């Protein structure tokens, strides 16, 4: 296919993941806020997960693109 969906999808998760990581880091001292998520800084944690999933998608898309042009 002409547009590899993994590319925009991966980029989006990388960006959203980064936002959550940064926001999580900024608010990490706010114990009151993270009472909801049972004391876990879920923003930081899940932001990292999203970032790596997104990065994996981008890598796969780039590899497919390189193989396609060979």
């Amino acid at each position: 296919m002409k547009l590899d969906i993994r590319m925009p999808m991966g980029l989006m998760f990388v960006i959203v993941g980064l936002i959550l990581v940064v926001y999580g880091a900024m608010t990490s001292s706010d114990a009151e806020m993270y009472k909801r998520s049972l004391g876990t800084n879920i923003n930081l944690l899940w932001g990292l997960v999203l970032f790596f999933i997104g990065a994996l998608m981008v890598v796969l898309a780039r590899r497919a693109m390189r193989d396609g042009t060979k």
Partner: protein
Amino acid sequence: MPRIELHAVDYLILCIYFLFVLGIGFALKRYMKTGADFFLSARSIPAWIAGLAFISANLGAQEVIGMSASGAKYGIMTSHFYWVGAIPAMAFVGIFMMPFYYGSKARSVPEYLKLRYDEKTRGFNAISFAVMTVFSSGISMYALAKLFEILLGWNFHFSVFISGVIVLAYISLGGLTSAIYNEVLQFFLIVLGFLPLVLLGLRDVGGWHELIRKLNEVAVGRGFAPGTMTQSWAHTGSAAANPMGVEWFGVVFGLGFVLSFGYWCTDFLVVQRAMAANSMSAARRTPLIAAVPKMLFPFLVILPGMIAISMHYQTKGTFLPMENGQPNYNMAMPVMLGHYYPAGMLGLGLTALMASFMSGMAGNVTAFNTVWTYDIYQSYIRPGQTDQHYLRVGHITTVVGILLSVACAYAATQFNNILDFLQLVFAFVNAPLFATFMLGMFWRRATGHGAFWGLLIGTCTAAIHHGLTLPAGTQSGIHGGWLGTIVHQYPSDMAQNFWTAIFAWTACFIATIVISLATAKNKTDDQLKGLVYSLTPKIKDHDLPWHKQPAMLGLIVIVGALILNVVFW
């Protein structure tokens, strides 16, 4: 119920999602040159993308909100919609039916009916389907706007406007491909947005065993045996023994066979995704690939409902908002989001919720586009025009489809009951349809007259059955019993639904056979080649690697579903 406060970071995440959705539409715009590009994605979609779009199109609001509500109300028995309902039907459509859908080169499900039977059978299906999609999409829009109004205090008109404009933009730009790509994006967003919720919820109740213990208390508190909320089959010996009010025969035959096969095998909304696949093999693998995540969805959508109801009892009835003395089950998922997610994650969760509404809407709109343009406009209004003409019609239809959905969304605010009633009517049309397809694909003697009148008789049987029966504790009207006399009382709405489907299917099946035998064949064996099982050369896929063989994949998902049924017996 308390409003959920959104922060700047939440809006930022929502905006980024909107930007990417529109960006994908723009990136695809230059590939939309012909009708085939716009309506069929030029049959170029790889199997895994088609597969994820296949479930995502069905993963609308009804699924996320409805299944978690059902999980709170009935517990794990809700999983029957997946492990008895969806999975076997998805395996069947991939292995047995896709060769005819894809192989016949039909552009839509109604078009297959025309090739196999005749014009009137296609017309009946095309028109009822077109009306149904517009209403479903409108109801999706209404539900979204209503929910965001209650939850976030968003203006109703604003929600309708923003969801309508975005769906309109990305379908107009990139056609079916854009809808499919966005469905894949939505799939990942929904999974990644709701998964932490389940993990947090489970940790909060104290783990799986603690959840079971608490749900047993809930079940006993409601007057059922302990275990009725957490065991899917053990209490289905009689309808009175479980909160869903159904017995095993109704589940297996009504839900598992008629309703699920009727939906997954004949509803163009999902079948369209497989028809866009890039090869016969990919088309057949589409529903089978979809079946794998589908099998695991109960943990994502039903489990939060079960956690919510156990929390509700633990907090002495303050967790869920109350409505007429009953917990408002529909709020299970939104309440969970607001309870466990801090700002940031909340933005992700709400974006996932928004995505589920939009994917349901977009799926309906693209299916409506194709059926309207090819099966109604090209067939009955203006045949014989150029491809560019039909492409333009498709673009206009997108706008009209969205406007009609908006109109339905507003109608829903005024006439809630009428819309419920319409949905009921469509259920009557859909239930017998699987009999028409089954006979069409596996019995070459079935005729056009047989199919059309069989379908009509099946639909009427459904209506009459509904009119003569009533679920316990309801009034005559929308729930049934509108024919005056009540012949039978069902323990629940669900049981009545299952049995309406069973009666409708059986009536259509028998009527189609009888009428077909009494009428002459209207298609020669040569015309039916590629449309009927016995007249189509078998596809050989023994030389493919095992993970590309539909029969092998089908076996794997069926075994997987069996194991899940046994584990949660």
